[in-house]
């Protein structure tokens, strides 16, 4: 089984009916020269890659940009239509006055499985006091949080907000809260590894492809930026497969990962077991 824990459904046809909304999404998310595609095309790519399920990430930018890059309701509508293939995450702008109500609705009525936050884009430091009720709400519902971390390509995104060291206080203060700092917090890979060594509730994903080919980028990540045995020895329960589609293509990252030598338990962890544990679905 393979689970992709990092997909942005920006161009999924069923939620692309409004041209103005789609234009806002493209400009705000910073992805261009792509057009909506139907689920037949989505599933053909997933099937070729061998990806069984994918986690969709929306983004609420109500106070910073006055809109959404995919709403919680849109994510829920896709999950409802294709429950075997998709896992729906929620998002909330943490500076919204009704942020806790939005989360309660997302986890209750909409049955979404986790929360996506992007400090760089939503302009907050993860360890600010006003964030605590949001973390506590996630703990109360046993929902994980997937944070964008490291470089953010998106316009109007400030990398300082998403530096991995800004997450340490959360990992320390809330050991029962499962958090994923996406993209290996690239380029801050060593800091990311430091957090994973110290905090078992900290996860990351493999969506790192800002330079070089997939083979070169993933080889550098797993054998140069990290030691070639670090996955086998220490990190095998904390790294999840994530593609960051539509920026990077699933099958190309998986093709590159297949070429990295690692023990079978580490590969199974990356491909699906760590995702199941992160989601709280199975204690594998």
């Amino acid at each position, binding site marked *: 089984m393979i689970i992709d824990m990092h997909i942005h459904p920006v161009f999924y046809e069923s939620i692309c009916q409004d041209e103005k909304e789609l234009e806002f999404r493209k400009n705000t998310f910073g992805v261009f020269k*792509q057009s909506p595609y139907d689920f037949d095309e989505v599933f*053909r790519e997933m099937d070729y890659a061998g990806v069984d399920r994918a986690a969709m990430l929306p983004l609420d930018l109500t106070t910073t940009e006055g809109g959404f890059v995919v709403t919680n309701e849109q994510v829920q509508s896709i999950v409802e239509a294709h429950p075997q293939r998709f896992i729906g995450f929620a998002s909330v702008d943490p500076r919204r006055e009704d942020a806790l109500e939005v989360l309660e609705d997302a986890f209750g009525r909409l049955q979404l499985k986790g929360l996506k936050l992007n400090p760089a884009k939503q302009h907050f430091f993860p360890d600010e006091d006003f964030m605590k009720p949001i973390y506590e709400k996630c703990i109360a519902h046993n929902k994980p949080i997937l944070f964008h971390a490291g470089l953010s390509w998106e316009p109007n995104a400030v990398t300082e907000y998403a530096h991995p060291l800004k997450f340490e206080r959360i990992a320390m203060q809330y050991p029962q809260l499962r958090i994923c700092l996406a993209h290996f917090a690239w380029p801050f890979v060593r800091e990311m590894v430091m957090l994973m060594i110290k905090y078992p509730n900290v996860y990351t994903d493999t969506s790192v492809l800002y330079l070089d080919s997939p*083979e070169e980028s993933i080889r550098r990540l797993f054998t140069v930026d990290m030691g070639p045995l670090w996955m086998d020895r220490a990190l095998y329960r904390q790294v999840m497969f994530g593609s960051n589609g539509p*920026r990077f293509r699933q099958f190309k990252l998986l093709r590159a990962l297949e070429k990295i030598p690692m023990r079978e338990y580490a590969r199974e962890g990356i491909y699906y077991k760590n995702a199941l544990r992160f989601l709280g679905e199975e204690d594998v």
Partner: protein
Amino acid sequence: MVDLQEIYWSSEKPEQFHMITRQVHEIVEKSPIKQGIVLVVTAHTTTGIIVNEGLPCVETDIGETLTRLVPLEADYAHAHFLPSYGATGNNSTGHIKSLLCGNHCVFPVVDGKVVCGSAQDIYIVELDGPQTRKVYVEVMGE
């Protein structure tokens, strides 16, 4: 006179041969144009249009030769984040193989039919799939 039609195809793999001979012939035969030429042109930069014998072994040889000439792993420059896309390129092999295949083919049209050899099949070649692809078929003449 010009009669422009489109053929759509959804590939299932990164590289795949797909024969469109029958569709092209049908478009020509349904066209009001009886004497002229037909152009078959891809709308993409990581596909090719080729004419060759429609045999699986020929497809295999062409595909393997393209990969020998344009290997997956090489020092391509087009392997980085593209600000104009907000996405990573990493499809140099598709672009270069597309160049080798060419983007179109041409046949004469006489008495409302394509004039071609019996072994000449027309393919769209996927070189960066899976994707949905579009081919223009333009019949020109009178």
